[in-house]
């Protein structure tokens, strides 16, 4: 029996800050940063937006894109590293605001940048086993970067929701298989009560991102007997532009395969939404029959790889909600002072 995506929805706040504006404050060279990170600007949440509001907007877009009865959703799982409450689920807020309550199971997921894809896998299991009809998996973040830290150039805001089901007529994309590669690798963390995360600098690269993305990606291709050339598109977690470009090349994917899903130069790293946003941007333009290879990465650390085939139904529902390209268009640029206000870095009371 097939399992896969029956709908998806994305949300990106309308504000952006350019790398130049951040670099000016800290005396860094914007050109070096932009070419090194391959990021030009990042999305900034409004003063009244957080991971919960972003998750709700993405979830509502997913429900309206497919036109399903939200009461059919039997699980809502929200992945984030910036849940607004330390204790109290974001997913209950999402469930209430999308009209899926009260007969459902809900929980919040946390696995740095891959909490959203872990939620997708959980929904695949529940749907495949027959425990639920449909499941909604969300990755949403208003990620934090300490002032002056390297992360401040990329830590962005955005979210994506996927509704997972198994009725052939409803699937816009079949998830043929998924494969995870996980070890205990302390490349990035945030301790309880701390406002900003810490990271291992260059240690986040080879032993973190590259080991786990290649471990998951190769594992899935070996399992399925597929090769990079069997896929039309590829999406890899995008903490910056450099890492996904490098890992895709290492694995044998071309620049053309990753380009449609490479949203990070105009968006920044949306953490739990990152890889899921790349998949959404790819679904926005994929044709029926196209195959998408995707691998999310979460620090801590692990990789979740997915092999996806787009169905004919994509054409029917694609235009019922905003595309990622539409969400990225016409941003409002703000300077560092207003960015600091939006992110609560200025205390006014």
């Amino acid at each position, binding site marked *: 029996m097939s399992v896969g995506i029956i709908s998806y929805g994305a949300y990106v706040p309308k504000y952006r800050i350019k790398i130049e504006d951040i670099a000016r404050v800290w005396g860094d060279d914007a050109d070096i940063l932009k070419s090194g990170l391959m990021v030009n600007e990042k999305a900034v949440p409004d003063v009244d937006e957080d991971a919960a509001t972003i998750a*709700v*907007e993405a979830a509502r877009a997913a429900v309206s894109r497919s036109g399903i009865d939200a009461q059919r959703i039997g699980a809502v799982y929200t992945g984030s590293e910036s849940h607004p409450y330390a204790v109290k689920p974001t997913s209950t807020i999402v469930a209430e605001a999308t009209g899926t309550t009260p007969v459902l199971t809900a929980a919040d997921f946390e696995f740095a940048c891959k909490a959203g894809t872990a939620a997708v896998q959980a929904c695949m299991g529940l749907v495949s086993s027959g425990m639920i009809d449909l499941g909604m998996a969300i990755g949403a973040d208003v990620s934090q970067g300490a002032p002056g830290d390297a992360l401040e150039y990329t830590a962005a805001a955005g979210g994506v929701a996927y509704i997972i089901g198994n009725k052939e007529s409803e699937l816009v994309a079949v998830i043929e298989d998924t494969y995870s590669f996980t070890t205990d690798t302390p490349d990035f963390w945030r301790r309880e009560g701390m406002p900003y995360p810490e990271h291992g600098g260059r240690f986040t690269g080879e032993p973190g991102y590259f080991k786990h993305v290649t471990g998951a990606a190769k594992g899935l291709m070996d399992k399925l007997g597929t090769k990079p050339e069997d896929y039309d598109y590829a999406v890899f977690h995008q903490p910056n532009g450099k890492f996904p470009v490098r890992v895709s090349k290492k694995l044998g994917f071309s620049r053309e395969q990753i380009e449609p899903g490479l949203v990070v130069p105009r968006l920044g790293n949306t953490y739990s939404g990152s890889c899921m946003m790349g998949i959404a941007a790819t679904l926005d333009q994929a044709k029926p029959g196209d195959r998408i290879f995707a691998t999310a990465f979460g620090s801590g650390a692990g990789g979740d790889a997915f092999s996806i085939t787009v169905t004919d139904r994509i054409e029917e529902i694609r235009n019922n909600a905003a595309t990622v390209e539409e969400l990225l268009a016409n941003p409002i640029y703000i300077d560092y002072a207003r960015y600091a*206000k939006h992110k609560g870095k200025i205390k006014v009371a």
Partner: protein
Amino acid sequence: MSVPRFWRKQIARYNLVGTRCKKCNEYFYPPRNMCPGCRREGEIEDFKFTGKGEVITFTVIHTAAEGFENQTPYVLGIIKLNEGPSLTSQIICEPEEVKIGMKVKPVFRKLGQAGERGMIYYGTKFVPDLC
């Protein structure tokens, strides 16, 4: 605001659920449980508003009440929903962007919070509807 007081009105705030009198086709938001026109002859049922509407009037707040200091300047307006009722809400846009008659649509936002330790209140605000 106490936790139960917010929670009782949570669905109305999250999803713009009001009521409608089936007898006279009058819509109410916030929800009424009795139609003031039809009185005991009225037939009240829940109604979920689309949230589409237009700005009737607005003001720009520069000196905010406690808890909203970090949002100034912000726009507060009266929105007339397409189905009829009017409500007061923050309108999320630049102060120079808002106009009387401007079409708006709903968004899900933080309405406020009970300090650093208390609960966070979520609900509906409005943004310009450019479509």
